[in-house]
């Protein structure tokens, strides 16, 4: 199996160099860029399996770059941020990032998160399962989501979240369960999950404005309407 390619974008050259070493040791190939614009060019030149990017960068900042990637791609994005405030994280997730790591971070943690994100991409890739429920069609192997005839582009994390909920309509999944399925042992905040649900709803509503199948069960979790 080919080594997964990670595109690492940060303006701190020393940091990029060291993280590259660690990633290479962990079995990844690494492509690097030192500002947002160069990062975008590298991305277009040869789409990586995953992008790690810093939030604040010269030229094009991380949020803008993430938004730009999301316009056409579902490639997992892990953000590096120096900001502790939750808003920044949520904003990053809102722009389409799959996960974030707060600086100063441990490379081990970063690698664990990269692996988890890649695992979500490969989840169900081998299965030929197709799920149809009231006009919504999910094809897990192709990661294809359609509302009626219209295709909705979901990232791996978003797809898996929707798949889990839609595969058992009426069942209430609590946040812990959902987070464990999606992130494994990695600790993520509940807000992260909420942001993902919001993103899925938003994308589906963009096609079908009346979509309200994803219900919030107050202080427990979520369920897909029976």
């Amino acid at each position, binding site marked *: 199996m080919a080594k997964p390619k990670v595109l690492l974008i*940060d303006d701190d050259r*020393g940091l990029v160099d*060291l993280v590259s*070493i660690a990633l290479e040791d962990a079995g990844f190939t690494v492509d690097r860029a030192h*500002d947002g614009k160069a990062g975008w060019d590298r991305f277009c030149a040869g789409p990586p399996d995953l992008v790690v990017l810093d939030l604040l960068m010269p030229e094009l900042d991380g949020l803008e770059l993430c938004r730009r990637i999301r316009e056409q791609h579902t490639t997992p994005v892990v953000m590096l941020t120096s900001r502790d405030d939750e808003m920044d994280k949520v904003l990053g997730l809102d722009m389409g990032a799959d996960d974030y790591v707060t600086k100063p971070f441990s490379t081990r943690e970063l690698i664990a998160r990269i692996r988890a994100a890649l695992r979500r991409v490969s989840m169900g890739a081998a299965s030929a399962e197709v799920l149809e429920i009231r006009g919504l069609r999910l094809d897990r192997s192709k990661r294809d989501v359609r509302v009626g005839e219209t295709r909705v582009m979901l990232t791996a994390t978003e797809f898996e979240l929707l798949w889990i909920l839609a595969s058992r309509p009426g069942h209430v999944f609590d946040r812990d369960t959902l987070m464990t399925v999606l992130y494994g042992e990695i600790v993520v905040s509940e807000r992260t999950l909420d942001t993902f649900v919001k993103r899925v709803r938003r994308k589906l509503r963009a096609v079908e404005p009346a979509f309200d199948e994803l219900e919030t069960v107050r202080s427990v979790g979520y369920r897909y309407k029976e």
Partner: protein
Amino acid sequence: MGLYDGWSRGRVQRDVQSISTMLSAQGARAQRGDDDSLDRFSREHAVFIRVLDRHGAVVRQTDPRYGDGRVSRVPWFERVADFFYGPQGAPDLLEYERVLPPMRERAEVQQALRGTPGELWRRPDAAKMFVFYRAIPSPDGDGVFYLSRISRRSMLALYDLRYQLLKLTLALVVSALIVSLWVTRHIVSPLVRIQDACRAYLKKGSGAPIVLARRDEIGDLSRDLDELTRRLQGWAAHTRQVTADLAHDLKSPLSTIHASAELLRDSAMLDDDRRQRIATAVSQAAAHMSRSVQAMLTLARLDESLPTEQRGVVSIGDLVARVSREFQQDPRNSHIRFVVDCPIDHAVFGVAERLAQAIHNLVDNAATFCRETVTVRVTTAASDVIIAILDDGPGVSRGNRDKIFTRFFSVRPPDQEPGSGLGLAIVHAIAQAHGGRVELAEDGEPGGACFRLVLALAD
């Protein structure tokens, strides 16, 4: 006084009516007059009693003074009224009686003689005395009890002065009350509001503005306090932001150090190349941190000293010449052409040392990015002097234009010594303390960057 007058008269009337009923019940014994019971009764009930025979002739009478209450026992409220209005009754009641028609011609007496009680108010001396008369047939039908009592009004004239004093006192009390209410409302409560606001601010560290829309000293005080609070809050927010920015800036080099430690610990192989890369990264991180901390201290000292530093008239020509000299003495700049375009000398009011530092920072930036020329051009516009620093380098890219004034944001070519990202922040602080500004010219020279330091010309 109409209210009291009415009340007093009503009281007199009711009293005399009930007394006459009591008297009528005692009846015969009183009429006989063989003892002093009538006298006692008269005294006790403060009423002047006369006993008339069937022809209306007085057969017996009590002391007329009983009718004005001076001899009788008086309840406390009557005494208070006495103090202001004077005691009841007129000393000349009998005198007055003389001008009245004879007994038998008086309407109330005639009525009583006919067998039914009769009563009447009389006003002997217009508006100064009221006397209530009540005549009742005696129980044996052989005569009349004739009772009278004076109402308060009688003595007003005598006690005019006290009355006026009372009015004055009352007026004073009322106005004192109004003044104290006004003082409370207009001076004490606003002060209390200001105090509350101050305490709330001290307690919570933040608070809403006091906002007293007044044009007096209290209004001024509230505005001054608001301004003080606003500045303190601004200062606190600034400090918070700068601290957060520094913390934020230090996290990247910290990550590098973290990653280095992990690599040193976890790497299966640690060859020379790897060791070299780790060492370089760590020393760059350390340099980054010390640069940031140093620049941060400079900025902090600047913030502290700028407002109090001695200011004077500063010649821009001298400043530029000084920066130019320093620039050319630096061997690192030997390949750069330094052009000064300052046809006329201008003066500004400020701290020479600081202004030189600001120009120096801008020139230093220009030198980092230029190909071969740095130009300083001094011009004026309206009442401002504009010191433009231009270079012939790549210019500031569109993506970075709105970032370059952010603290700790630094983009320098990889072959250049890295910057702290606070150079422009320092220029900004100096310009601001001089009432000026620093800006990136919208459309500078073709290609290169053009920063403009705008300061007010000295008068």
